[in-house]
Protein backbone atom coordinates (compact mmCIF):
# COMPACT_ATOMS: atom_id res chain seq x y z
CA UNK A 1 0.00 0.00 0.00
CA UNK A 2 1.25 3.42 -0.91
CA UNK A 3 -0.17 5.97 1.50
CA UNK A 4 -0.01 9.77 1.39
CA UNK A 5 -0.51 11.60 4.69
CA UNK A 6 -1.51 15.28 4.53
CA UNK A 7 -0.09 17.23 7.43
CA UNK A 8 -0.28 20.80 8.63
CA UNK A 9 1.72 22.99 10.94
CA UNK A 10 -0.45 24.97 13.35
CA UNK A 11 0.16 27.30 16.31
CA UNK A 12 0.95 25.45 19.51
CA UNK A 13 -2.10 24.61 21.57
CA UNK A 14 -1.14 26.60 24.63
CA UNK A 15 0.67 29.40 22.82
CA UNK A 16 -0.78 32.87 23.42
CA UNK A 17 -1.85 34.18 20.02
CA UNK A 18 -1.99 37.81 18.94
CA UNK A 19 -3.96 39.30 16.09
CA UNK A 20 -2.11 40.92 13.20
CA UNK A 21 -2.58 44.61 12.37
CA UNK A 22 -5.31 43.96 9.82
CA UNK A 23 -7.07 41.77 12.40
CA UNK A 24 -7.67 39.06 9.80
CA UNK A 25 -5.07 36.51 10.93
CA UNK A 26 -2.73 35.90 13.82
CA UNK A 27 0.75 37.35 14.05
CA UNK A 28 3.37 35.13 12.51
CA UNK A 29 5.67 35.15 15.56
CA UNK A 30 3.89 32.29 17.35
CA UNK A 31 5.37 28.88 18.17
CA UNK A 32 4.17 26.08 15.94
CA UNK A 33 3.67 22.35 16.13
CA UNK A 34 2.18 19.55 14.07
CA UNK A 35 -1.61 19.58 13.93
CA UNK A 36 -2.41 16.84 16.42
CA UNK A 37 -5.14 15.10 14.35
CA UNK A 38 -2.58 14.80 11.52
CA UNK A 39 -0.17 13.06 13.90
CA UNK A 40 -2.85 10.36 14.33
CA UNK A 41 -3.24 10.11 10.55
CA UNK A 42 0.52 9.57 10.27
CA UNK A 43 0.48 7.01 13.08
CA UNK A 44 -2.26 5.03 11.32
CA UNK A 45 -0.33 5.15 8.03
CA UNK A 46 2.84 3.86 9.70
CA UNK A 47 0.86 1.02 11.32
CA UNK A 48 -0.70 0.10 7.96
CA UNK A 49 2.76 -0.03 6.44
CA UNK A 50 4.02 -2.25 9.26
CA UNK A 51 1.10 -4.60 8.66
CA UNK A 52 0.82 -4.62 4.89
CA UNK A 53 4.10 -3.19 3.64
CA UNK A 54 4.35 -0.31 1.21
CA UNK A 55 5.37 3.30 1.46
CA UNK A 56 4.33 6.28 3.56
CA UNK A 57 4.75 9.72 2.02
CA UNK A 58 4.00 12.92 3.95
CA UNK A 59 2.98 16.21 2.37
CA UNK A 60 2.44 19.73 3.64
CA UNK A 61 1.71 23.15 2.14
CA UNK A 62 3.08 26.12 3.99
CA UNK A 63 6.04 28.43 4.58
CA UNK A 64 9.62 27.25 5.16
CA UNK A 65 8.95 26.63 8.88
CA UNK A 66 6.39 23.95 7.99
CA UNK A 67 9.25 21.68 6.91
CA UNK A 68 9.64 20.85 10.57
CA UNK A 69 6.49 18.69 10.61
CA UNK A 70 7.81 16.75 7.62
CA UNK A 71 11.20 16.14 9.27
CA UNK A 72 9.43 14.95 12.37
CA UNK A 73 7.28 12.57 10.31
CA UNK A 74 10.34 11.23 8.50
CA UNK A 75 12.02 10.65 11.86
CA UNK A 76 8.99 8.66 13.00
CA UNK A 77 9.24 6.40 9.96
CA UNK A 78 7.72 8.06 6.88
CA UNK A 79 9.73 7.24 3.75
CA UNK A 80 9.75 10.56 1.96
CA UNK A 81 8.21 14.00 2.03
CA UNK A 82 6.76 16.66 -0.27
CA UNK A 83 6.76 20.32 0.74
CA UNK A 84 4.71 22.88 -1.16
CA UNK A 85 6.79 25.73 0.11
CA UNK A 86 5.43 29.26 -0.07
CA UNK A 87 3.95 31.77 2.36
CA UNK A 88 0.90 32.00 0.09
CA UNK A 89 -0.13 28.44 0.91
CA UNK A 90 -0.83 29.52 4.47
CA UNK A 91 -3.69 31.82 3.51
CA UNK A 92 -5.55 29.61 1.07
CA UNK A 93 -9.10 28.44 1.55
CA UNK A 94 -9.74 24.72 1.91
CA UNK A 95 -10.57 24.14 -1.77
CA UNK A 96 -7.37 25.76 -2.97
CA UNK A 97 -5.29 23.85 -0.44
CA UNK A 98 -6.83 20.63 -1.75
CA UNK A 99 -6.18 21.75 -5.34
CA UNK A 100 -2.54 22.50 -4.56
CA UNK A 101 -2.00 19.16 -2.83
CA UNK A 102 -3.75 17.26 -5.61
CA UNK A 103 -1.66 19.03 -8.25
CA UNK A 104 1.57 18.23 -6.43
CA UNK A 105 0.88 14.47 -6.50
CA UNK A 106 -0.54 14.19 -10.02
CA UNK A 107 2.34 11.99 -11.18
CA UNK A 108 2.15 9.65 -8.18
CA UNK A 109 -0.14 6.65 -7.70
CA UNK A 110 -1.28 6.34 -4.11
CA UNK A 111 -3.67 3.68 -2.81
CA UNK A 112 -4.85 5.81 0.09
CA UNK A 113 -4.66 9.40 1.22
CA UNK A 114 -5.03 10.11 4.94
CA UNK A 115 -5.76 13.43 6.56
CA UNK A 116 -6.40 14.32 10.18
CA UNK A 117 -9.95 14.93 11.29
CA UNK A 118 -9.58 18.70 11.13
CA UNK A 119 -6.98 21.35 11.82
CA UNK A 120 -6.56 23.07 15.14
CA UNK A 121 -6.23 26.50 13.50
CA UNK A 122 -8.94 26.77 10.81
CA UNK A 123 -10.92 23.65 11.63
CA UNK A 124 -12.66 23.50 8.25
CA UNK A 125 -12.50 19.69 8.32
CA UNK A 126 -12.76 19.66 4.52
CA UNK A 127 -9.35 19.01 2.94
CA UNK A 128 -9.84 15.22 2.82
CA UNK A 129 -13.29 15.08 1.19
CA UNK A 130 -12.25 17.91 -1.15
CA UNK A 131 -9.20 16.01 -2.34
CA UNK A 132 -11.41 12.97 -2.91
CA UNK A 133 -13.73 15.11 -5.04
CA UNK A 134 -10.87 16.62 -7.07
CA UNK A 135 -9.28 13.21 -7.65
CA UNK A 136 -12.62 11.50 -8.28
CA UNK A 137 -11.99 8.97 -5.50
CA UNK A 138 -14.42 7.62 -2.88
CA UNK A 139 -13.88 8.77 0.70
CA UNK A 140 -14.96 8.17 4.26
CA UNK A 141 -14.53 10.41 7.30
CA UNK A 142 -13.80 9.93 11.00
CA UNK A 143 -12.18 6.54 10.58
CA UNK A 144 -11.10 4.42 13.54
CA UNK A 145 -9.92 1.18 11.93
CA UNK A 146 -8.77 0.14 8.47
CA UNK A 147 -8.61 -3.41 7.26
CA UNK A 148 -7.25 -4.39 3.85
CA UNK A 149 -9.63 -6.62 1.92
CA UNK A 150 -9.83 -8.25 -1.46
CA UNK A 151 -10.44 -5.39 -3.89
CA UNK A 152 -10.34 -2.61 -1.32
CA UNK A 153 -10.71 -1.81 2.34
CA UNK A 154 -13.21 -2.15 5.18
CA UNK A 155 -13.16 0.77 7.59
CA UNK A 156 -14.84 1.55 10.90
CA UNK A 157 -16.45 4.99 10.93
CA UNK A 158 -17.51 6.90 14.00
CA UNK A 159 -21.07 8.21 13.88
CA UNK A 160 -22.71 10.49 16.42
CA UNK A 161 -23.97 9.56 19.90
CA UNK A 162 -21.75 6.54 20.40
CA UNK A 163 -22.66 4.74 17.17
CA UNK A 164 -20.22 3.20 14.70
CA UNK A 165 -20.46 1.68 11.27
CA UNK A 166 -18.35 -0.47 8.98
CA UNK A 167 -18.00 0.66 5.37
CA UNK A 168 -16.41 -1.18 2.47
CA UNK A 169 -14.91 0.66 -0.46
CA UNK A 170 -12.56 0.17 -3.38
CA UNK A 171 -9.14 1.81 -3.64
CA UNK A 172 -7.80 4.36 -4.20
CA UNK A 173 -9.67 6.24 -1.48
CA UNK A 174 -9.34 9.19 0.88
CA UNK A 175 -9.85 8.69 4.61
CA UNK A 176 -9.93 11.23 7.42
CA UNK A 177 -8.61 9.64 10.59
CA UNK A 178 -10.20 10.07 14.01
CA UNK A 179 -7.87 11.40 16.70
CA UNK A 180 -7.02 9.31 19.71
CA UNK A 181 -7.43 5.90 18.05
CA UNK A 182 -3.89 4.84 18.86
CA UNK A 183 -0.89 5.78 20.91
CA UNK A 184 1.42 8.14 19.04
CA UNK A 185 4.98 6.96 18.70
CA UNK A 186 8.01 9.09 19.44
CA UNK A 187 10.85 9.49 17.00
CA UNK A 188 13.88 7.45 17.98
CA UNK A 189 17.42 8.86 17.89
CA UNK A 190 18.17 6.52 15.00
CA UNK A 191 15.02 7.71 13.25
CA UNK A 192 16.03 11.34 13.64
CA UNK A 193 19.44 10.54 12.19
CA UNK A 194 17.98 8.62 9.25
CA UNK A 195 15.45 11.35 8.53
CA UNK A 196 18.23 13.67 7.42
CA UNK A 197 18.95 11.45 4.43
CA UNK A 198 15.38 10.76 3.39
CA UNK A 199 14.12 12.47 0.22
CA UNK A 200 12.19 15.72 0.60
CA UNK A 201 10.80 17.13 -2.64
CA UNK A 202 10.05 20.84 -2.71
CA UNK A 203 7.22 22.12 -4.88
CA UNK A 204 7.19 25.83 -5.73
CA UNK A 205 4.01 27.88 -5.89
CA UNK A 206 4.41 28.34 -9.65
CA UNK A 207 4.36 24.58 -10.24
CA UNK A 208 0.80 24.31 -8.97
CA UNK A 209 -0.46 27.86 -9.66
CA UNK A 210 -2.32 26.84 -12.83
CA UNK A 211 -4.51 24.49 -10.75
CA UNK A 212 -5.54 27.22 -8.33
CA UNK A 213 -8.45 29.64 -8.45
CA UNK A 214 -9.16 32.84 -6.53
CA UNK A 215 -10.07 32.15 -2.90
CA UNK A 216 -13.84 32.01 -2.46
CA UNK A 217 -13.71 33.00 1.17
CA UNK A 218 -12.27 36.04 2.90
CA UNK A 219 -11.74 36.44 6.60
CA UNK A 220 -13.15 39.93 7.05
CA UNK A 221 -12.29 40.12 10.69
CA UNK A 222 -10.83 37.91 13.37
CA UNK A 223 -11.60 38.84 16.96
CA UNK A 224 -11.90 37.59 20.50
CA UNK A 225 -15.43 36.25 20.95
CA UNK A 226 -17.87 38.48 22.77
CA UNK A 227 -19.18 37.06 25.94
CA UNK A 228 -22.75 35.95 25.69
CA UNK A 229 -22.82 35.22 29.37
CA UNK A 230 -21.89 37.30 32.38
CA UNK A 231 -19.19 35.25 34.06
CA UNK A 232 -18.51 36.02 37.68
CA UNK A 233 -14.80 35.58 38.30
CA UNK A 234 -13.75 34.55 41.79
CA UNK A 235 -10.45 35.88 43.06
CA UNK A 236 -8.22 35.31 46.05
CA UNK A 237 -6.17 32.51 47.54
CA UNK A 238 -7.26 28.94 46.77
CA UNK A 239 -8.91 28.79 50.22
CA UNK A 240 -10.78 32.05 49.67
CA UNK A 241 -11.90 30.99 46.23
CA UNK A 242 -13.05 27.62 47.57
CA UNK A 243 -15.08 29.30 50.34
CA UNK A 244 -16.76 31.70 47.89
CA UNK A 245 -17.55 28.89 45.48
CA UNK A 246 -19.02 26.62 48.13
CA UNK A 247 -21.22 29.51 49.30
CA UNK A 248 -22.48 29.87 45.73
CA UNK A 249 -23.06 26.14 45.31
CA UNK A 250 -25.11 26.23 48.47
CA UNK A 251 -26.97 29.55 48.38
CA UNK A 252 -27.38 30.34 44.68
CA UNK A 253 -27.16 27.08 42.77
CA UNK A 254 -28.73 24.93 45.50
CA UNK A 255 -26.63 21.91 44.67
CA UNK A 256 -25.11 21.35 48.12
Amino acid at each position, binding site marked *: MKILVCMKQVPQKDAPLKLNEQANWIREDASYEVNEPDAYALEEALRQKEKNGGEVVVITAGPARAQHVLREALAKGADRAIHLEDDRFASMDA*VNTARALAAAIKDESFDMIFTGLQSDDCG*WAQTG*PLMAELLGWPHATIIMEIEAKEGGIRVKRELESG*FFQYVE*MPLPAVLTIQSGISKLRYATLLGIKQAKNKPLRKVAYDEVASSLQPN*QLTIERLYV*PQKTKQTEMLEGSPQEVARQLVAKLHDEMHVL
Partner: protein
Amino acid sequence: MAETILVIAEQREGKLNRVSLETVAGAQALAKQTGWSVEAAVVGGESAASAAKELAGCAVAKVYAITGAALEPYTPDGYVAALNAFLSAGTPKLVLLPHTYQVRDFAPRLAARMGAALVSDVVGCRFEGGKLLLTRPMFQGKFVADIALNGDGPAFASLQSGAYRADKVEAASAPAHVEQVQAAAGEIRTHPEAPFQEARQAVDLTQAELIVSVGRGIKEQKNIALAQSLADALGASLGASRPICDAGWLPMAHQVGSSGQTVSPKLYLALGISGAIQHVVGMKGSRHIVAVNKDAGAPIFEVADVGVVGDLFAVVPALIEEVKKAKG
Protein backbone atom coordinates in the same frame (compact mmCIF):
# COMPACT_ATOMS: atom_id res chain seq x y z
CA MET B 1 -35.19 29.94 -6.44
CA ALA B 2 -32.62 32.64 -6.77
CA GLU B 3 -33.40 34.74 -3.73
CA THR B 4 -33.76 31.72 -1.54
CA ILE B 5 -32.16 30.20 1.51
CA LEU B 6 -32.47 26.46 1.26
CA VAL B 7 -32.16 24.36 4.40
CA ILE B 8 -31.07 20.78 3.82
CA ALA B 9 -32.36 19.02 6.90
CA GLU B 10 -31.09 15.70 8.23
CA GLN B 11 -33.41 12.87 9.12
CA ARG B 12 -32.95 9.42 10.55
CA GLU B 13 -35.79 6.94 10.26
CA GLY B 14 -38.09 9.77 9.26
CA LYS B 15 -37.32 12.04 12.20
CA LEU B 16 -35.54 15.37 11.98
CA ASN B 17 -32.70 15.90 14.43
CA ARG B 18 -32.74 18.96 16.67
CA VAL B 19 -29.88 20.76 14.94
CA SER B 20 -31.86 20.57 11.67
CA LEU B 21 -34.67 22.51 13.35
CA GLU B 22 -32.09 24.95 14.72
CA THR B 23 -30.90 25.40 11.15
CA VAL B 24 -34.45 26.22 10.05
CA ALA B 25 -34.59 28.81 12.86
CA GLY B 26 -31.27 30.26 11.59
CA ALA B 27 -32.60 30.46 8.04
CA GLN B 28 -35.79 32.17 9.21
CA ALA B 29 -33.80 34.71 11.25
CA LEU B 30 -31.50 35.49 8.32
CA ALA B 31 -34.44 35.74 5.92
CA LYS B 32 -35.86 38.53 8.07
CA GLN B 33 -32.68 40.54 7.45
CA THR B 34 -32.29 39.76 3.76
CA GLY B 35 -35.86 39.51 2.55
CA TRP B 36 -35.01 36.19 0.94
CA SER B 37 -37.45 33.31 1.15
CA VAL B 38 -36.79 30.09 3.02
CA GLU B 39 -37.26 26.64 1.56
CA ALA B 40 -36.32 23.30 3.04
CA ALA B 41 -35.33 19.93 1.66
CA VAL B 42 -34.89 16.53 3.18
CA VAL B 43 -33.07 13.63 1.60
CA GLY B 44 -33.45 9.90 2.04
CA GLY B 45 -35.39 6.76 1.30
CA GLU B 46 -39.13 6.36 1.74
CA SER B 47 -38.99 7.33 5.41
CA ALA B 48 -37.92 10.86 4.45
CA ALA B 49 -41.58 11.58 3.68
CA SER B 50 -42.50 11.91 7.35
CA ALA B 51 -39.55 14.22 7.96
CA ALA B 52 -40.77 16.33 5.03
CA LYS B 53 -44.15 16.58 6.73
CA GLU B 54 -42.45 17.76 9.92
CA LEU B 55 -40.57 20.42 7.92
CA ALA B 56 -43.80 21.55 6.28
CA GLY B 57 -45.02 22.50 9.74
CA CYS B 58 -42.36 25.22 9.89
CA ALA B 59 -42.93 28.60 8.26
CA VAL B 60 -41.13 27.89 4.98
CA ALA B 61 -42.21 28.66 1.41
CA LYS B 62 -41.80 25.12 0.18
CA VAL B 63 -40.49 21.70 1.15
CA TYR B 64 -38.76 19.24 -1.15
CA ALA B 65 -38.69 15.53 -0.35
CA ILE B 66 -35.77 14.21 -2.35
CA THR B 67 -36.12 10.47 -2.26
CA GLY B 68 -34.73 7.45 -3.98
CA ALA B 69 -33.76 3.88 -3.22
CA ALA B 70 -30.08 4.83 -3.59
CA LEU B 71 -30.35 7.33 -0.71
CA GLU B 72 -31.01 4.78 2.03
CA PRO B 73 -28.66 4.02 3.68
CA TYR B 74 -26.68 7.24 3.56
CA THR B 75 -23.59 7.35 1.35
CA PRO B 76 -21.63 10.45 0.34
CA ASP B 77 -21.76 9.40 -3.33
CA GLY B 78 -25.55 9.05 -3.25
CA TYR B 79 -26.20 12.32 -1.43
CA VAL B 80 -23.76 14.36 -3.49
CA ALA B 81 -25.17 13.11 -6.80
CA ALA B 82 -28.79 13.64 -5.75
CA LEU B 83 -28.27 17.08 -4.23
CA ASN B 84 -26.01 18.27 -7.02
CA ALA B 85 -28.70 17.41 -9.59
CA PHE B 86 -31.43 19.01 -7.49
CA LEU B 87 -29.52 22.22 -6.74
CA SER B 88 -28.28 22.66 -10.29
CA ALA B 89 -31.89 22.89 -11.45
CA GLY B 90 -32.46 26.08 -9.49
CA THR B 91 -29.59 27.31 -7.42
CA PRO B 92 -30.44 29.09 -4.17
CA LYS B 93 -28.41 32.00 -2.82
CA LEU B 94 -27.46 30.14 0.30
CA VAL B 95 -27.66 26.52 1.38
CA LEU B 96 -27.74 25.98 5.13
CA LEU B 97 -27.04 22.59 6.68
CA PRO B 98 -26.76 21.33 10.25
CA HIS B 99 -23.11 20.77 11.19
CA THR B 100 -23.41 17.04 11.87
CA TYR B 101 -20.96 14.22 11.20
CA GLN B 102 -23.01 13.30 8.12
CA VAL B 103 -22.91 16.84 6.73
CA ARG B 104 -19.19 17.02 7.39
CA ASP B 105 -18.92 13.86 5.31
CA PHE B 106 -20.75 14.94 2.15
CA ALA B 107 -21.14 18.73 2.13
CA PRO B 108 -17.53 19.67 1.23
CA ARG B 109 -17.78 17.42 -1.84
CA LEU B 110 -21.20 18.75 -2.79
CA ALA B 111 -20.06 22.37 -2.56
CA ALA B 112 -16.91 21.64 -4.56
CA ARG B 113 -18.87 19.84 -7.27
CA MET B 114 -21.01 22.96 -7.63
CA GLY B 115 -17.95 25.20 -7.73
CA ALA B 116 -18.95 26.70 -4.40
CA ALA B 117 -17.38 27.04 -0.99
CA LEU B 118 -18.65 25.58 2.27
CA VAL B 119 -18.25 27.61 5.43
CA SER B 120 -18.32 24.95 8.12
CA ASP B 121 -18.97 25.20 11.85
CA VAL B 122 -20.92 28.47 11.65
CA VAL B 123 -22.31 29.93 14.87
CA GLY B 124 -24.00 33.01 13.44
CA CYS B 125 -25.16 34.54 10.14
CA ARG B 126 -25.90 38.17 9.45
CA PHE B 127 -26.46 40.48 6.54
CA GLU B 128 -24.52 43.70 6.79
CA GLY B 129 -24.12 46.39 4.14
CA GLY B 130 -25.45 44.07 1.46
CA LYS B 131 -22.95 41.43 2.43
CA LEU B 132 -23.53 38.05 4.02
CA LEU B 133 -21.20 37.45 6.97
CA LEU B 134 -20.83 34.01 8.50
CA THR B 135 -19.29 33.82 11.95
CA ARG B 136 -17.32 30.77 13.03
CA PRO B 137 -14.77 29.88 15.71
CA MET B 138 -11.13 29.57 14.72
CA PHE B 139 -7.96 28.59 16.56
CA GLN B 140 -9.92 26.22 18.79
CA GLY B 141 -12.34 28.93 19.83
CA LYS B 142 -9.69 31.43 20.92
CA PHE B 143 -10.98 33.70 18.15
CA VAL B 144 -14.04 33.96 16.00
CA ALA B 145 -13.97 35.05 12.37
CA ASP B 146 -16.46 36.88 10.20
CA ILE B 147 -16.23 35.16 6.83
CA ALA B 148 -17.39 36.81 3.63
CA LEU B 149 -18.00 34.93 0.40
CA ASN B 150 -16.47 36.29 -2.78
CA GLY B 151 -18.33 36.04 -6.06
CA ASP B 152 -21.98 35.44 -6.82
CA GLY B 153 -22.07 31.66 -6.72
CA PRO B 154 -24.23 29.79 -4.27
CA ALA B 155 -22.80 29.63 -0.77
CA PHE B 156 -22.92 26.69 1.61
CA ALA B 157 -22.78 26.95 5.37
CA SER B 158 -23.14 24.35 8.10
CA LEU B 159 -24.53 25.59 11.43
CA GLN B 160 -23.05 24.35 14.68
CA SER B 161 -25.37 22.75 17.19
CA GLY B 162 -26.82 25.42 19.49
CA ALA B 163 -26.12 28.35 17.14
CA TYR B 164 -29.87 28.96 16.92
CA ARG B 165 -32.68 27.67 19.08
CA ALA B 166 -35.02 24.98 17.86
CA ASP B 167 -37.86 26.38 20.00
CA LYS B 168 -37.56 29.65 18.06
CA VAL B 169 -38.64 28.01 14.80
CA GLU B 170 -41.59 29.92 13.43
CA ALA B 171 -44.45 27.53 12.78
CA ALA B 172 -46.47 27.57 9.58
CA SER B 173 -50.01 28.92 9.68
CA ALA B 174 -50.86 26.30 7.09
CA PRO B 175 -48.55 23.40 6.17
CA ALA B 176 -46.14 24.24 3.34
CA HIS B 177 -46.45 22.44 0.02
CA VAL B 178 -44.27 19.34 -0.18
CA GLU B 179 -42.84 18.71 -3.62
CA GLN B 180 -41.70 15.16 -4.32
CA VAL B 181 -38.36 15.01 -6.12
CA GLN B 182 -37.12 11.75 -7.59
CA ALA B 183 -33.41 11.65 -6.81
CA ALA B 184 -30.94 11.32 -9.63
CA ALA B 185 -28.92 8.16 -9.18
CA GLY B 186 -25.18 8.01 -9.46
CA GLU B 187 -22.53 5.39 -8.95
CA ILE B 188 -22.22 4.47 -5.27
CA ARG B 189 -18.78 3.22 -4.39
CA THR B 190 -18.94 2.89 -0.61
CA HIS B 191 -20.97 0.13 0.98
CA PRO B 192 -22.04 0.88 4.55
CA GLU B 193 -23.14 -1.76 7.03
CA ALA B 194 -25.75 -1.12 9.72
CA PRO B 195 -24.75 1.30 12.51
CA PHE B 196 -24.06 -0.32 15.87
CA GLN B 197 -23.25 0.68 19.44
CA GLU B 198 -20.38 -0.82 21.36
CA ALA B 199 -21.01 -2.23 24.84
CA ARG B 200 -23.93 -0.40 26.42
CA GLN B 201 -22.81 2.89 27.97
CA ALA B 202 -21.91 2.00 31.53
CA VAL B 203 -21.97 5.62 32.62
CA ASP B 204 -25.10 7.58 31.85
CA LEU B 205 -24.08 11.18 32.35
CA THR B 206 -27.25 12.44 30.70
CA GLN B 207 -29.15 11.66 33.91
CA ALA B 208 -26.54 13.10 36.29
CA GLU B 209 -27.57 16.07 38.45
CA LEU B 210 -23.99 17.10 39.18
CA ILE B 211 -20.94 16.54 37.01
CA VAL B 212 -17.28 17.21 37.73
CA SER B 213 -15.43 17.07 34.43
CA VAL B 214 -11.70 16.98 33.68
CA GLY B 215 -9.65 18.12 30.70
CA ARG B 216 -6.04 18.32 29.60
CA GLY B 217 -5.23 20.59 32.54
CA ILE B 218 -5.24 17.55 34.81
CA LYS B 219 -1.86 16.74 33.21
CA GLU B 220 -1.40 13.12 34.31
CA GLN B 221 -3.55 10.05 34.68
CA LYS B 222 -2.80 9.74 38.39
CA ASN B 223 -4.28 13.20 38.95
CA ILE B 224 -7.71 11.97 37.86
CA ALA B 225 -8.01 10.76 41.46
CA LEU B 226 -8.09 14.38 42.61
CA ALA B 227 -11.10 15.13 40.40
CA GLN B 228 -12.71 11.89 41.57
CA SER B 229 -12.30 13.00 45.20
CA LEU B 230 -14.07 16.26 44.46
CA ALA B 231 -16.82 14.38 42.61
CA ASP B 232 -17.19 12.02 45.57
CA ALA B 233 -17.36 14.91 48.04
CA LEU B 234 -20.08 16.57 45.96
CA GLY B 235 -21.88 13.35 45.13
CA ALA B 236 -21.23 14.11 41.46
CA SER B 237 -20.50 11.95 38.42
CA LEU B 238 -17.16 12.21 36.67
CA GLY B 239 -17.04 13.46 33.09
CA ALA B 240 -14.14 14.27 30.77
CA SER B 241 -13.20 16.03 27.59
CA ARG B 242 -12.13 14.03 24.58
CA PRO B 243 -8.32 14.12 25.07
CA ILE B 244 -8.67 12.47 28.47
CA CYS B 245 -10.61 9.54 27.01
CA ASP B 246 -8.37 9.41 23.94
CA ALA B 247 -5.39 9.00 26.25
CA GLY B 248 -7.19 6.14 27.98
CA TRP B 249 -7.17 7.92 31.35
CA LEU B 250 -10.93 7.42 31.63
CA PRO B 251 -13.21 5.10 29.62
CA MET B 252 -14.95 6.63 26.59
CA ALA B 253 -18.27 6.40 28.44
CA HIS B 254 -17.20 9.45 30.48
CA GLN B 255 -16.75 11.66 27.45
CA VAL B 256 -18.84 14.80 27.13
CA GLY B 257 -19.08 16.57 23.79
CA SER B 258 -20.07 16.14 20.18
CA SER B 259 -18.54 12.68 19.99
CA GLY B 260 -19.61 11.74 23.50
CA GLN B 261 -22.65 12.46 25.64
CA THR B 262 -24.72 15.65 25.70
CA VAL B 263 -25.42 16.56 29.31
CA SER B 264 -27.53 19.12 31.12
CA PRO B 265 -26.93 18.74 34.86
CA LYS B 266 -27.72 21.31 37.54
CA LEU B 267 -23.98 21.81 38.00
CA TYR B 268 -21.16 21.27 35.54
CA LEU B 269 -17.81 21.88 37.14
CA ALA B 270 -15.08 21.97 34.48
CA LEU B 271 -11.53 21.40 35.70
CA GLY B 272 -8.71 22.22 33.29
CA ILE B 273 -11.01 22.10 30.28
CA SER B 274 -10.15 24.68 27.65
CA GLY B 275 -13.63 24.65 26.13
CA ALA B 276 -13.16 23.66 22.49
CA ILE B 277 -16.47 23.89 20.63
CA GLN B 278 -16.69 20.09 20.34
CA HIS B 279 -16.80 19.92 24.13
CA VAL B 280 -18.98 22.96 24.72
CA VAL B 281 -21.82 21.70 22.51
CA GLY B 282 -22.12 18.74 24.86
CA MET B 283 -22.44 20.71 28.11
CA LYS B 284 -23.61 24.23 27.49
CA GLY B 285 -27.19 23.27 28.33
CA SER B 286 -26.11 22.80 31.97
CA ARG B 287 -28.02 24.94 34.47
CA HIS B 288 -24.88 26.22 36.21
CA ILE B 289 -21.37 26.05 34.78
CA VAL B 290 -18.29 26.57 36.93
CA ALA B 291 -14.85 26.57 35.30
CA VAL B 292 -11.40 26.35 36.84
CA ASN B 293 -8.58 26.96 34.37
CA LYS B 294 -5.13 28.47 34.56
CA ASP B 295 -5.57 30.28 31.23
CA ALA B 296 -7.76 33.38 31.59
CA GLY B 297 -8.29 33.35 27.81
CA ALA B 298 -9.67 29.81 27.72
CA PRO B 299 -12.97 29.69 25.78
CA ILE B 300 -14.60 27.74 28.63
CA PHE B 301 -15.00 31.09 30.40
CA GLU B 302 -17.31 32.20 27.56
CA VAL B 303 -19.94 29.77 28.78
CA ALA B 304 -19.14 29.66 32.49
CA ASP B 305 -21.39 31.35 35.07
CA VAL B 306 -18.63 31.29 37.63
CA GLY B 307 -14.95 31.23 36.74
CA VAL B 308 -11.73 30.73 38.65
CA VAL B 309 -8.45 31.54 36.94
CA GLY B 310 -5.95 29.50 38.86
CA ASP B 311 -4.05 26.32 39.43
CA LEU B 312 -6.55 23.50 39.79
CA PHE B 313 -4.03 21.57 41.88
CA ALA B 314 -4.29 24.30 44.52
CA VAL B 315 -7.99 25.12 44.11
CA VAL B 316 -9.44 21.59 44.04
CA PRO B 317 -7.96 20.35 47.36
CA ALA B 318 -9.21 23.53 49.06
CA LEU B 319 -12.59 23.01 47.45
CA ILE B 320 -12.82 19.40 48.61
CA GLU B 321 -12.14 20.55 52.16
CA GLU B 322 -14.78 23.30 52.00
CA VAL B 323 -17.39 20.99 50.47
CA LYS B 324 -16.79 18.42 53.22
CA LYS B 325 -17.13 21.16 55.86
CA ALA B 326 -20.36 22.43 54.30
CA LYS B 327 -21.80 18.95 54.14
CA GLY B 328 -20.79 18.36 57.76
